[in-house]
């Protein structure tokens, strides 16, 4: 896609995101805010899994670390803008640590390690009642008060979340376009070759986990303020699998994949509510069919359409050059 067309499309989508909640009820705005927050969490996992090729089933646990850190600090009087960075920093440190097993094991073994980590975080949140409130969770988490712009009502909080999402997306764009992004892709495609070209694959693996976890922490800080109540069940393994589904459905390794994937996973069940008791069945079938026919995710559909209907015949440049080879 041409750069100018892509820019216009992005601006149009941002404009749509600004206009879409106007005149809508609180529930629709809540669902749209959830979509933005889960897009941030999926963006992080997309970096770890889609770009760097390191499977993780622990993204919900980083949302938990971000959410509980922010909630505990804001409940004790800290401003959200001061509490959130600490939650994100905690995720960076813990994510860096979780990356260490990835230096030794790959594939489904790594998936099981991250799965165990998610369960461990869940158990700590449930059992350490003195800190986390146990199964009762934490209630009354304040939303950010930005002086003239209070986010206590749903629409201002939506716009606040949209702003944070755009900033997070721009930061991610900067990362994946930088030499770091190239090193992440090299790690995914051929780590031995990457290492032989001077890429410190150990450091890059740890950073892939740490940065991806930071995005989970940011999403957690936002979800704590959105719901204003958190409990361990909101960050269990099922939620990590849900974020993984967002990345797979949207298109792993594509920049806009997480937005599309989170949109499908969060908005589609709402759209299908007219089917009442059957909506989850229809939803599951649609996801299965999509993953079978478009394994590269929703973003990959455009590539398939382009290859099918807009193919431009290209002369084999290498054959043209071949005659000149000595």
């Amino acid at each position: 896609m041409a750069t100018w067309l892509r820019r216009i499309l992005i601006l149009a989508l941002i404009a749509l995101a600004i206009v879409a909640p106007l005149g809508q009820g609180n529930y629709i705005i809540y669902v749209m805010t959830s979509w933005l927050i889960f897009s941030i969490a999926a963006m992080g996992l997309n970096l770890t899994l889609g770009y760097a090729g390191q499977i993780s089933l622990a993204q919900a646990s980083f949302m938990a670390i971000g959410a509980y850190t922010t909630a505990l600090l804001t409940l004790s009087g800290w401003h959200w803008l001061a509490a959130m960075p600490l939650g994100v920093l905690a995720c960076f440190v813990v994510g860096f640590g979780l990356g260490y097993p990835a230096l030794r094991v790959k594939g489904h073994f790594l998936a099981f390690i991250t799965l165990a980590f998610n369960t461990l975080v869940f158990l700590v949140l449930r059992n350490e009642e003195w800190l986390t409130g146990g199964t009762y969770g934490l209630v009354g988490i304040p939303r950010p008060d930005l002086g003239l712009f209070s986010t206590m009502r749903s629409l201002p909080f939506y716009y606040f979340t949209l702003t944070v999402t755009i900033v997070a997306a721009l930061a991610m764009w900067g990362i994946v376009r930088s030499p770091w992004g190239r090193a992440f892709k090299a790690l995914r495609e051929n780590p031995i070759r990457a290492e032989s070209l001077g890429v410190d694959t150990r450091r890059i693996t740890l950073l892939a986990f740490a940065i991806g976890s930071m995005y989970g922490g940011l999403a957690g800080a936002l979800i704590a303020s959105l719901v204003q109540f958190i409990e361990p069940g909101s960050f269990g393994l099922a939620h990590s699998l849900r974020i993984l589904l967002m990345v797979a459905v949207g298109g792993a390794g594509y920049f806009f994949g997480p937005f599309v994937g989170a949109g499908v996973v969060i908005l589609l069940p709402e759209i299908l509510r007219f089917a009442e008791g059957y909506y989850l069945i229809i939803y599951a079938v649609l996801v299965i069919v999509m993953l079978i026919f478009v394994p590269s995710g929703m973003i990959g559909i455009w590539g398939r359409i382009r290859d099918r209907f807009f193919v431009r015949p290209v002369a084999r440049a290498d054959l043209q050059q071949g005659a000149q080879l000595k």
Partner: protein
Amino acid sequence: MSQPVLSVRSIEKSFGGIKAVRGVSFDVHKGEILGLIGPNGSGKSTLFNCILGQLEPDAGQVHVNGRDVSGLRPSKLNRLGVGRTFQQLAVFPQMSVFDNIVLAGQEHRGTMLSRLFGPSDAGLTADAERMISFFRLGHLRGTLAGSLSYGQQKLLDAAMAFMAGPALVLLDEPAGGVNLTMLAHLRERLAAYNAEHDTTFVVIEHNMEFVMNLCTRVIVLAEGAVIAEGTPDEIRSNQTVIDAYLGG
């Protein structure tokens, strides 16, 4: 004589009861193209992997420009000026030819932080274009590496090994599976690079014609030990070498 670029001293490596490399020693000097040949199972690849830090030798040392690099990780070795190519195709298939080449040089530019906040190409566009042009891959600049032909991927693999301006490049069967036209092209480009930059090469290869036409000196391995060393002409007529290859 000047200090060798690569000095291999008494390298030994066993796998269980099998001694794959038995006390191999040799030096390679600046600008030399050393061929390392031998029948299958003679220990060439094991020796290569010991030199390049991918295997830890049981005994012996490797020095690059006088510095002991034994046991160094491949990434550190690369930053000390040692490039390599692989026997199997080793490009990044989902990245363009240009990005493959830039990746091969970016880790030698700036710091970790400057690579995050600096330009996307790490300031390497001009160097990358030169390297792409040198290996005559200009018409494939934006093509995904995975969609190149086998021979073109071998050329790209070689171009990547040279991108960081290494003092020493180890080429692991560069001619394997490459058609005759592309093979002549690859050999000519390697010789031209060596002549232009005085870079030192060590080449493992089964294709005798390729080795004899490219290399200035040849070492022959059999059963993990050096059995002959000399110019290509001397090796061609060496009875021990002929016997080793024919199983005599």
